[in-house]
């Protein structure tokens, strides 16, 4: 394992130092490992807090800023943040209008956010929670921890963040966040595993002509293994998996997201196939993102995330956003 780190133990705090140095628009609380907007809480505005294990950069800290998150709590690599950290963030972003917790549906994230919400409530902050669970690879929700939260997290953060910026009340912001999640689906494919620095070796092994279908964003193996094929075929597998759950139609927001180790040129190839296939199936891609947004360390592969837009969602998607990793309109 070769990693550009000083040590596995200091990785997250070293990276936070880098973020602090790189982005004057952020205030990084190194002690509590919380990334805030530099300008602090705005009175009357709902605060948005997200968080999760590190290793998914730019998610979440790269999405702190105008029109998106108010604070992000990075945990250790692939380990959800701890309640203290989340409470610190929640108190720090409360402008009196309450705080929305955006939680990816993993047992660890759910439990830690739950505790934090309770503790924050004790301290007088009103907290609403939205659970993101867009990953169609996990089917049987009765007998599992339920679907995982993956790519749609970005959509939820962006769109709910845009609404919060208008001064909308907490219930409204939570409603739109849930709506985005309900309208979103993801499916991921890995060409290679990733290597967790503290573990020191790849999370699984894959042959020279094998891929994993239905992966999450934590280096876990997927639901099944398949033979490597052309980008066109693999893109269709992903779109079909999504379509089996929510048939594509109407105006659609699509992200072709790299898992961290895949070159951008390949992501554009995949996007070309995804867009063409969705068109063939009757949906129209009206907004898109192509790039590394919700990653899994150095894993090679991609994830397709779709969101069936409404007029309101499109408007909120288009609203100005100014964060280190997503920026338009100002």
């Amino acid at each position: 394992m070769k990693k550009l780190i000083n040590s596995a133990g200091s990785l997250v705090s070293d990276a936070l130092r880098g973020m602090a140095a790189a982005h004057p628009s952020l205030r990084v609380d190194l002690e509590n490992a919380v990334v805030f907007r530099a300008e602090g809480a705005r009175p009357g505005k709902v605060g948005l807090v997200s968080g999760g294990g590190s290793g998914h950069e730019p998610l979440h800290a790269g999405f702190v800023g105008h029109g998106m998150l108010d604070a992000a709590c990075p945990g250790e690599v692939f380990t959800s943040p701890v309640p203290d950290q989340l409470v610190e963030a929640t108190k720090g972003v409360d402008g009196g209008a309450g705080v929305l917790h955006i939680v990816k549906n993993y047992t660890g994230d759910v439990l830690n956010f739950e505790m934090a919400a309770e503790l924050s409530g004790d301290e007088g902050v009103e907290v609403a929670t939205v659970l993101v669970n867009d990953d169609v690879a996990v089917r049987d929700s009765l007998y599992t921890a339920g679907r995982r939260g993956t790519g749609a997290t970005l959509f939820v953060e962006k769109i709910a963040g845009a609404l919060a910026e208008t001064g909308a009340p907490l219930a409204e912001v939570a409603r739109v966040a849930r709506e985005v999640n309900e309208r979103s689906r993801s499916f991921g494919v890995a060409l290679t595993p990733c290597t967790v620095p503290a573990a020191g070796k790849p999370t699984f092994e894959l042959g020279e002509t094998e891929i994993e279908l239905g992966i999450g964003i934590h280096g876990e193996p997927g639901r099944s293994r398949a033979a490597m094929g052309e980008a066109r075929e693999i893109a269709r597998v992903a779109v079909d998996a999504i379509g089996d759950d929510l048939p594509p139609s109407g105006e659609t927001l699509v992200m072709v997201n790299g898992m961290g180790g895949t070159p951008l040129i390949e992501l554009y190839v995949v996007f070309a196939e995804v867009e063409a296939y969705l068109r063939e199936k009757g949906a129209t891609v009206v907004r898109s993102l192509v790039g590394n947004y919700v990653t899994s360390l150095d894993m090679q592969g991609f994830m397709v995330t779709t969101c069936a837009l409404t007029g309101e969602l499109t408007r909120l998607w288009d609203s100005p956003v100014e964060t280190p990793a997503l920026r338009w309109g100002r």
Partner: protein
Amino acid sequence: RFVNTEFFAAWIEEITAAVRAGRDHLTELDAAIGDADHGTNLDRGFTAVGEALAAAPPRTPGALLVLVGTTLIRKVGGASGPLYGTAFREMGKAFGEAPEISPAELSAGVDAALAGVRRLGSAAEGDKTMVDALAPAAAALSRAVRDGLKPEEALEAAATAAAEGARATVPLQARKGRASYLGPRSVGHEDPGAASTALVFGALRAAASRG
């Protein structure tokens, strides 16, 4: 025979050593069906526990275990942080202010830990989680106490039951936690949380055989 704060401090030391020694193994188990951090998580947590206990040594078994649990919740993250944290906290709370703990009280404390984990994680036995080691350990301990076994034998029974429970997760298909995402592919691997729970009960036996 009753056990005191020192005994529980020894238990935590034994756990810390076992987790340190077993860290890479636990992480490997987690890599197979999870996200390759379980050993690192617990190692980080118990290192912090050691520091917390050294900084303000608690006076009673109950206070000690509550501090252990709180520290785990504060430092571990992930699923195992809140779950183990709650387990130790519930056990500590069950002990109240008592300066010494009887075998029956110990057994009730483990039952409280199990109840806490069950409530928080809503996993049943057979879901391939730490509950599959914790529940049989609690049952074995309670049976041993009811049957009037010697404390050493009772803890031996609990440790054996936990270890067997962990081993028995191998053929199961996970229904909770990350491993559940793998569906049928989770079969054939030992659950990392059950494996670490076996270490925790092994450490309890070791602590007892120390004195």
